[in-house]
């Protein structure tokens, strides 16, 4: 049972345009959401996160939107740059400080076309 879903395995976007990556979740206990970026042969790196008390969080070119009623989050990258080409994973966690575990989606491969 995939509790965090990224339904688009790949996405291609022209350089300078907006990239929108989507993620859906099914577990209503999830209250904190994160995006990771992964280059080949490297470990995932943390990108941006959002708590369920917010509907938007922005960090430079990256903005994450959360629609809790739809159990949907998205990552917007504006403007897209060639260095953004990577695999992006969304992850979710319940807010329960203790032994928090992240549940990851299957990833979306983003390719920025120069």
């Amino acid at each position: 049972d995939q509790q965090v879903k990224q339904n688009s395995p790949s996405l291609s976007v022209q350089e300078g345009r907006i990239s929108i990556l989507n993620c859906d979740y099914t577990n209503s206990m999830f209250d904190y959401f994160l995006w990771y970026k992964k280059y080949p042969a490297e470990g995932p790196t943390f990108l941006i996160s959002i708590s369920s008390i917010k509907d938007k969080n922005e960090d430079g070119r990256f903005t994450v939107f959360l629609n809790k009623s739809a159990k949907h989050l998205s990552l917007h990258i504006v403007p897209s740059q060639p260095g953004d080409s990577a695999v992006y994973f969304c992850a979710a966690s319940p807010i329960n400080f203790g032994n928090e575990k992240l549940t990851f989606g299957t990833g979306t491969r983003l390719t920025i076309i120069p």
Partner: protein
Amino acid sequence: DAGITQSPRHKVTETGTPVTLRCHQTENHRYMYWYRQDPGHGLRLIHYSYGVKDTDKGEVSDGYSVSRSKTEDFLLTLESATSSQTSVYFCAIRPTGVYEQYFGPGTRLTVT
């Protein structure tokens, strides 16, 4: 840089042999995690640790064991490697008080 190293970085082994992967951190974080990454599955949690000698299972723990005798080291052991355990293995740490986990560079394991 979260000060995480993994060894070895690459390993090829035969079915039925035991294999131990090591994760080492330099910042004394309490929480450490082992994941495997496979195409179509994303990152799946194998085992995690919340302190020295304190470990628990993740969603794909069958065939794996872990040990943490020192804060800085978290070992993942495949008792008898199988071809289905061919994967890329990532270790992660989580600083206390935050949700973000920080990952090591990974170990590519091939079981022939």
